[in-house]
């Protein structure tokens, strides 16, 4: 069998990061080729290069025997590439069949032939062996079924290569099984599949070969049968796993936060407690309601029912302002849209939450704020030529430090980190971890929502796991294991 796709010396630069650095490798036809790497390793960028969504600065892409400097989405489609992104590209208010044939012309020049479309759609699903009513509205389907619609979309064309970006991240365990059966069927038909996933067991189950990426570099490709999990992890992380999380030895203190029977924002009956000097991890799949929970506690979403106690006293939190007053801080997962003010300087950002404290009769005391910000810059190691630098010009890690400083400036004693290291390179991750440890040392208590298993296990003292808006389980440090967490998270 030949090579369906080859990349030669492909590089892609983004502000502050080299997303792909001289990447060369090839995909054999008819195989299931897994692509692994930590968050920010460059997998998503690589897909975008192959799908024509972005142009690399350097390198050559050889597809179907022809050489290109860069692809366009149309050209990539024409060459038989289909992509299933983590976020679905479906129109929720249209039916399954309309979504499958969106943008394609079946029928006469003017009027579409819906009957034919329906038949074609049914054929695809029959072949998969799944039951989907093709006239149903896409918004009515489960995420798993929606994903099948995405796959069906690619199959209306003569597709040769399907790229799946973390297809199992947001669907249930049963749906994952169906997905694997479909992948096997597609493989039998001769379709090549690039399968991106964080989950070891999945990759070992369905992939023929695996390629590893790390920090924008291509590390290597191995046949699945010749490689162990441990070797894969070492390749991905580039070091022994247990080295990457700084040690911490702080006795558990008083209970600082108690959440009792909390309902709201899609979550039901959640109770847990947080002790001083503790990092409490919250695990769960995408859509399990973790961010939703954080927003209720922080007053950014409405609580229908329940009590929140800080230091044993019930507090009423209706707005983020109330939460800040109660000593609770929240560092959002979506740094660019919820955390930072990108179009403003560092000092402006760090001071925005504590302005009232640093003002005399409404007038902002610029000198005092500059002192405060310079102190934070030193303490957190924010790398920038000056505190007047615009935040959008900083790297992801430094942006995150600015957002953390913004919350620390309010003297919060309980801080909820939502995906603290998303989109941050490995070096900066270490700094964030050390920062979290330093915070704990100073008596701050932390709740950490994370989708990175290693981070959860490495950093937390205790982990609670959520599943579909409910608490599914709790684990003490000695019982931590990826399997246990995944079982709880999948509702098993």
């Amino acid at each position, binding site marked *: 069998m030949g090579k369906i796709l080859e990349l030669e010396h492909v590089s892609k*630069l*983004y*502000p*502050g*990061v*080299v997303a792909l*650095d001289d990447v060369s490798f090839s995909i054999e036809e008819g195989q299931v080729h897994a692509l692994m790497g930590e968050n920010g390793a460059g997998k998503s960028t690589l897909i975008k290069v192959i799908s024509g969504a972005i142009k690399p*600065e350097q390198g050559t892409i050889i597809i179907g025997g022809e050489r290109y400097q860069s692809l366009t989405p149309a050209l990539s489609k024409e060459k038989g590439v289909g992509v299933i992104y983590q976020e679905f590209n479906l129109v929720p208010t249209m039916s399954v069949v309309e979504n499958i044939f969106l943008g394609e012309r079946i029928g006469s020049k003017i009027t579409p032939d819906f009957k034919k479309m329906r038949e074609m759609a049914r054929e695809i699903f029959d072949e998969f062996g799944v039951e989907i009513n093709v006239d149903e509205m896409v918004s009515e389907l489960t995420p798993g079924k929606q994903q099948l619609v995405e796959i069906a979309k690619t199959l209306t064309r003569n597709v040769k290569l399907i790229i799946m970006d973390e297809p199992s991240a947001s669907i249930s365990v049963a749906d994952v099984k169906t997905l694997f059966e479909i992948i096997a069927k597609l493989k039998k038909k001769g379709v090549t599949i690039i399968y991106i996933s964080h989950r070891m067991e999945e990759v070992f189950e369905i992939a023929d070969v695996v390629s590893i990426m790390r920090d924008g570099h291509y590390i290597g490709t191995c046949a699945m049968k010749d490689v162990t999990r441990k070797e894969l992890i070492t390749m991905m992380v580039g070091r022994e796993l247990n080295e990457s999380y700084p040690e911490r030895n702080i006795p558990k203190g008083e209970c600082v936060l108690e959440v009792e029977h909390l309902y709201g924002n899609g979550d039901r009956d959640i109770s847990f407690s947080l002790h001083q000097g503790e990092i409490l991890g919250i695990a769960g799949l995408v859509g399990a309601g973790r961010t939703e929970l954080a927003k209720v506690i*922080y007053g*950014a979403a409405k609580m229908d029912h329940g009590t929140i106690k800080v230091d044993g006293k019930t507090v009423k939190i209706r*707005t*983020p*302002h109330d*939460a*800040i007053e109660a000593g609770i801080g*929240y560092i*959002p997962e979506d740094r660019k*849209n*919820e*955390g*930072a*003010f*990108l*179009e*403003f300087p560092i000092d*402006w950002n760090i001071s*925005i*939450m504590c*302005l*009232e404290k640093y*003002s005399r009769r*409404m*007038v*902002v005391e610029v000198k005092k704020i500059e002192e405060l910000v310079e102190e934070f810059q030193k303490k957190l190691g924010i790398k920038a030529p000056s505190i007047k630098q615009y935040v*959008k*010009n900083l790297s992801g890690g430094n942006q995150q430090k600015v957002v953390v400083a*913004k919350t620390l400036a*309010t003297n919060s004693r309980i801080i909820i980190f939502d995906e603290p290291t998303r989109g941050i390179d490995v070096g900066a991750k270490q700094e964030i971890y050390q920062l979290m440890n330093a915070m704990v040392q100073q008596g701050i208590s932390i709740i950490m929502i994370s989708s990175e298993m290693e981070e959860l296990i490495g950093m937390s003292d205790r982990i609670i796991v959520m599943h579909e808006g409910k608490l599914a389980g709790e684990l003490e440090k000695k019982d931590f294991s990826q399997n246990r967490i995944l079982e709880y998270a999948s509702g098993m």
Partner: protein
Amino acid sequence: MKLNKKFSASEFLRNNMAWVLLAVCCLIFGVISPNFFSLVNIINILNQNAYIIITALGISFIMMSGEVDISVGYAISLNGVVIALLMTKFGMSPVVAVIVAVLLGIVLCLVNMLIAYKLKLQLFMATVGTSTIFQGLAFVMTQSKTISNLPPSFKIIGQGYIGIIPIPVAIALVLLIVVSFILNKTYVGRYVFAIGGNVEAARLAGINVFGMKIFIASIAGFMTGIGAIILSARLGSVTANMGTGLEFTIITAVLLGGVSVRGGEGKISGVVAGVLILAILSNGMQLARLDVYYQFVAKGIIMLAAIGFDVYQLNRRKKITIKTQGGKENIKD
């Protein structure tokens, strides 16, 4: 180094575009007509446009917070009509009328804001509706007739002088100082920018977004109220469409002044320059004896140019950022 220099030069131009443009306009019209630079003409221009400057100061609060209000012209008409009727038909004293005008200005702006908030609309869409309502009400009240015979003590506000400075210009100056103080020195001013820059981040930072919107609408309403008083007093009579088209002039001026359409940026001095650019264009075109209707064409072109420049600068800055950042990374490797 070269890149840095270029960057800051373009940054300077961007921050002071309105003043540079204003200087260019002055030079051109100064050459075309010798009367342009006379003290009488300059004071005249300022006097004629003081009410626009004041209203634009208010509207720039709204635009800095990321919204657009197109009802301001009709709000001014309605406001003028109401106080003129109160003074001529019901014998209300000018002092009370001034207070009523200010309060009515605030109420109209709050109505816009609350409709947008409750219906979860952009302010722009809400004001598309309310501007027609305001206009309709103004015509209903006046029966399309001009209301003249405003009390002389009221007219002084628009026609009087302090030394050689017209009262409207003096009021505009005071309000300019107040507004720049609020925006640049107080924390409330920073909150305005924060909301314009990123509403969700502002909310999560504990800023009371709804409260701030009420504050912003009140300031804008206060300013339109004052604008309505000065315009009515200067004209000495009021019609139901005296403010028509003002929203367009104001939005263009605010954009020219460097307040971004996306909110979150802006210098208040630029807004003043923006108003003056448009004023000088129409004044200069009159002095050059050009047909009045060409002014509409010219204003439209200028508005598009201002928006285009804004967008162009944004894209350019993005590209520059990528280049410099990418370059740094390469060196490190």
